[in-house]
């Protein structure tokens, strides 16, 4: 074989392998859509399950996941922003930042079931929040912190250094500089990171298992201190714990969960693309 032939062959082989990566995603989605699309209806989306969950809809679980997603955003946002600003704008390379960075890396590596147990111990029992939306949101928030902090820090560091220098040289304080010249330009990137984190949180089962998720609770939560059903856990329950469960309802639930998570990712991606296009420097 000549060098050119080898070259061409290598390119074809590598392209094929790359294409293989797309395949499972397409297969999973189309399989779930094919099996689940039949049950999707207003009734399925917006009514409570009936007859031991073998009939009816998923409304309490869907709404619960929406509540938990918002709760997670509220829990993670302030902590993540403050940490990222500290790391990117205030701290140099000192002992505290090294500890904080080490903590973030390790937070990212903790299995989600451990978050669930930690949430049970810390929020449900120790802080006496009970099995509740607050406890679940805090647990999920904690779990999403690493990804949100790292994307936020990246977004802050992507703002050109000159903007800070110029702002300071014009007599702005450190905080004014961050507030007016850094945060506005980093915000889309930070929000993208948060939405990506939420996408992961919305699909997780283990962290909500002991902290918020209800096995079967047809009425909706009345306050943030109530339990709620949630889509991932509901899917787990109807797939493994309910005998005689129609398969179509399981796939319908999986499809809705998939759509919730994918739409969050999609929003994040669109936001990021638009932000890159609007950037002036």
């Amino acid at each position, binding site marked *: 074989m000549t060098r050119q032939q080898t070259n061409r062959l290598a390119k074809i082989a590598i392209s094929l392998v790359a294409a293989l990566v797309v395949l499972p995603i397409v297969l999973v989605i189309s399989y779930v859509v094919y099996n689940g699309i039949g049950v999707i209806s207003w009734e399925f989306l917006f009514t409570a399950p009936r007859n031991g969950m073998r009939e009816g809809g998923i409304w309490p679980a869907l709404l619960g996941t929406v509540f938990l997603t918002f709760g997670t955003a509220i829990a993670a946002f302030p902590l993540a922003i403050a940490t990222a600003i500290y790391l990117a704008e205030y701290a140099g390379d000192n002992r505290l930042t090294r500890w904080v960075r080490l903590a973030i890396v390790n937070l990212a590596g903790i299995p989600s079931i451990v978050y669930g147990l930690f949430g049970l111990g810390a929020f449900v029992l120790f802080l006496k929040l009970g099995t509740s939306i607050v406890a679940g949101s805090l647990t999920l928030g904690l779990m999403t912190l690493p990804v949100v902090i790292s994307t936020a820090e990246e977004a802050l560091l992507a703002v050109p250094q000159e903007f800070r*220098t110029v702002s300071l040289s014009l*007599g702005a304080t450190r905080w004014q500089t961050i507030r007016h010249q850094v945060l506005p330009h980093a915000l889309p990137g930070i929000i993208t990171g948060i939405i990506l984190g939420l996408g992961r949180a919305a699909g997780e089962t283990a962290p909500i298992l002991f902290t918020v998720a209800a096995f079967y609770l047809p009425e909706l939560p009345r306050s943030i201190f109530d339990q709620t059903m949630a889509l991932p856990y509901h899917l787990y329950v109807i797939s493994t714990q309910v005998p005689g469960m129609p398969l179509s309802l399981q796939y319908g639930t999986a499809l809705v969960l998939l759509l919730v998570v994918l739409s969050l990712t999609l929003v994040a991606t669109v936001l990021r693309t638009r932000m890159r296009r609007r950037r*002036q420097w």
Partner: protein
Amino acid sequence: MSQNASPVIAIEHLSFTFPDNTAALKDVTLDIAPNEIFVIFGPSRSGKSTLLRLLNRLSDLNEGAKRQGRVFFNGRDIFAPSVDVTELRRRLSMVFAIPTPLPGSIFDNLAYGLRMAGIRDAQLIERRITRALEQAALWDEVKDRLNSSAFALSGGQKQRLCLARSLAMEPDVILLDNPTSGLDPLSTATVEDSLIELKSRYTIIMVPHSVQQAARVADRAAFLMGGELIEAGTGRQMFANPKDKRTEDYVVGRFG
């Protein structure tokens, strides 16, 4: 004003060492008089920009660097703990080598420093901006599009915008770090003309683009090499008849 007036800036035995132990400035002592164009020139890495950035304490951003010696601005030690560094930077306003508009409109750029200083009076801001643009010889070119993006300006216009942005602060001293580095000869001439106009109202300290530029604009000049002050004097003396052999070699272009 006379050259005998008390100095605006008095630099006394100033040394500056970066965290990696390279000495950027070694025991520099200089006086800068009001309403003069004082040029700090020398080969690259001679400490010119470092000296400039010490005067408005942008050097504070160099974490872990060591400073010795003192700098007095109108008789006050600028490194004293009681000094409000934001106020200092308003009094000594800096223009950088690369034109650096901030994202936003031309107007926003000019108003930024004033707004950050807590000025809310829209009319006052507008008056200051108009005057600054006139002084920087930019008013005629941008008066009809103050609300368009500052990034849409040409290189020369951007640099005059940065000059105007400093002037809007109504500082006492303008620090110019090679303000014509990226500019064509025509824009350079415009900026130099503005500077000569401006020295009746401001003290100007400038790191020049070239020896030729230094000779064109300097009332007085200081020659730095390897962080040491080799010689300082009037422009005429420094560029026509330097005392030190090293200054002469540099001025006539034997090294650079």
